[in-house]
């Protein structure tokens, strides 16, 4: 990407005797709707986008390189920074890939603690996603409704692990702490209060005519394209592919839990449009509530962490695990050379694939729709750049 995009170029193109001008516009890296630092170079014909080329890397912190320097246990807090709005899943991915390398089994209660933390995090992340999406499109009030509830979840997670965003809760072999006293009661009370608020939120904005008008039938992604570009999670399911790693490649205690996998149905708009992606997330919040309630009921007593040596040296080899993060199937690949330090660690995230499809889907859309596209794909810039 050349720096030329920072200037506005004007080209004179003669067509049918009419003088038209194609403009190269720069959006970002600092822009209120880009959710982090990312940049687009847009070629526009009037209000219509000819192409929208993403320029990423502004948040590249070389997290994968850091893994090679800090050791297996020491890398856990860094994984939080891969996706800071859904850090539990990054914790879980790293813990699971290390456990696979070394063949460690996590105690049952530890797995339940993980699922409880992760599902709360999923609700918080989806609330952020849907809240900022309506904000980007121009509705301010629903954003506060979504964030009000997200704050309560942050409070619960803070009680669990001491942090509101960068949790560092999980450990190789389990979790750092058991649930604090009274947590289940508090959390259940929150869920009872929170569940009816989803309907309130839908009344407030989801089915609002103007909002639906901005999202429905905009940036439609077919199931073939979604799979070809490796879109994952809600973005993939909105295109009609009923696939969830939790259900289809089960890990942790998900096989013991019943839940549905919502997909885009096209009741409003069509399958795979921006509204379908938004709507799948709303439905997933309900499924997470279902999962949490079952966890509280089924959770056994016992230890929460397996015995793992402080000098953790998994045998040489490599392993790949996939976790269903809030932004979908997150792949963790780790290579061990038998020493205390990982030889290589690679994270493949949901936002990375979502970013790469933006240029394709935004061609021919209005400039203002670019904001809808970014928000509906739920892109978190640090997750792209790592």
């Amino acid at each position, binding site marked *: *990407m050349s720096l030329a995009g920072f200037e506005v170029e004007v080209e004179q193109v003669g067509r049918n005797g009419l003088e038209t001008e194609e403009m190269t516009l720069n959006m970002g890296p600092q822009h209120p709707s880009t959710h982090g630092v990312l940049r687009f170079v847009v070629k526009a014909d009037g209000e219509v986008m000819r192409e929208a080329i993403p320029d990423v*890397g502004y948040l590249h912190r070389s997290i994968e*390189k850091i893994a090679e320097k800090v050791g297996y246990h020491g890398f856990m807090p860094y994984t939080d920074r891969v996706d800071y709005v859904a850090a539990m899943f990054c914790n879980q991915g790293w813990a699971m890939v290390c456990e696979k390398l070394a063949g460690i089994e996590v105690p049952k209660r530890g797995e339940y603690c993980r699922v409880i933390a992760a599902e709360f995090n999923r609700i918080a992340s989806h609330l952020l996603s849907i809240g900022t999406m309506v904000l980007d499109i121009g509705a301010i009030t629903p954003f506060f409704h979504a964030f009000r509830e997200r704050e309560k979840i942050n409070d619960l997670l803070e009680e669990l692990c001491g942090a509101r965003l960068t949790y560092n809760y999980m450990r190789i072999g389990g979790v750092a702490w058991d649930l604090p006293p009274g947590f289940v009661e508090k959390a259940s009370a929150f869920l009872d209060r929170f569940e009816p608020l989803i309907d309130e939120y839908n009344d407030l904005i989801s089915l609002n005519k103007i909002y639906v008008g901005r999202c429905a039938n905009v940036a439609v992604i077919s199931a073939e394209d979604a799979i*070809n570009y*490796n879109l994952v999670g809600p973005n993939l399911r909105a295109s009609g592919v009923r696939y969830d790693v939790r259900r289809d490649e089960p890990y942790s205690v998900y096989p013991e839990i019943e839940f549905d996998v919502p997909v885009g149905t096209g009741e409003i708009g069509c399958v795979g449009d921006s509204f379908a992606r938004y709507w799948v997330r709303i439905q997933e919040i309900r499924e997470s509530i279902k999962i949490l309630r079952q966890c509280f009921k089924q959770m056994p007593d016992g230890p929460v962490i397996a015995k793992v040596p402080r000098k953790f040296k998994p045998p040489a080899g*490599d392993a790949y695990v996939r976790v269903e993060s809030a932004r979908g199937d997150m792949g963790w*690949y780790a290579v061990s050379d038998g020493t205390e330090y990982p030889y*290589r660690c*690679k994270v493949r995230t949901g936002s990375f694939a979502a*970013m790469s499809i933006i240029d394709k889907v935004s061609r021919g859309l209005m400039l203002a729709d670019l904001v809808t596209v970014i928000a509906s794909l739920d892109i978190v810039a640090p997750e792209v750049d790592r």
Partner: protein
Amino acid sequence: MDAATLFERLRAQFGERVGEANLAAKDPWIIVEPAAIHEVCRYLRDDPELCFDALSNLSGVDYKDHGYIEVVYHLYSYAHRHYAVLKVRTPRENPSVASVESVWKAANWLEREIYDLLGVTFTGHPDLRRLLMPEDWIGHPLRKDFVEPDEYHGISTRRESLLR
């Protein structure tokens, strides 16, 4: 489909261009020649019994002591719910692998990332540019012998310790 059957089928189809396999590994893997990877991937995607419709992950690993860079393909089939791991080894000096961008669009950015961070050239890639690092960056940071430069455009990368 398990890895042993897949290995047999690939051997039958491509002969010596498909190398050794480690079927006892945690994720069993198969080695493929750098120039053949595109053909092998196209076959894996298009064969109705295999139908690997998604490239789940693409990673590059620098094995400096062995003198090669390994590119690891994690494939997944949504149609049949099975997966496979392919590995390609290319010399550290002038590493080059055939691009699979025309097989799965997901490879476009994943290959750009490996080109950027490890310096592997993917032949046949339509738009092989750096992805994460600045385009005037020198070197490939995920190489094991990469040394961080002292400055970038006059900005020092060294910082004095605040604990004094």
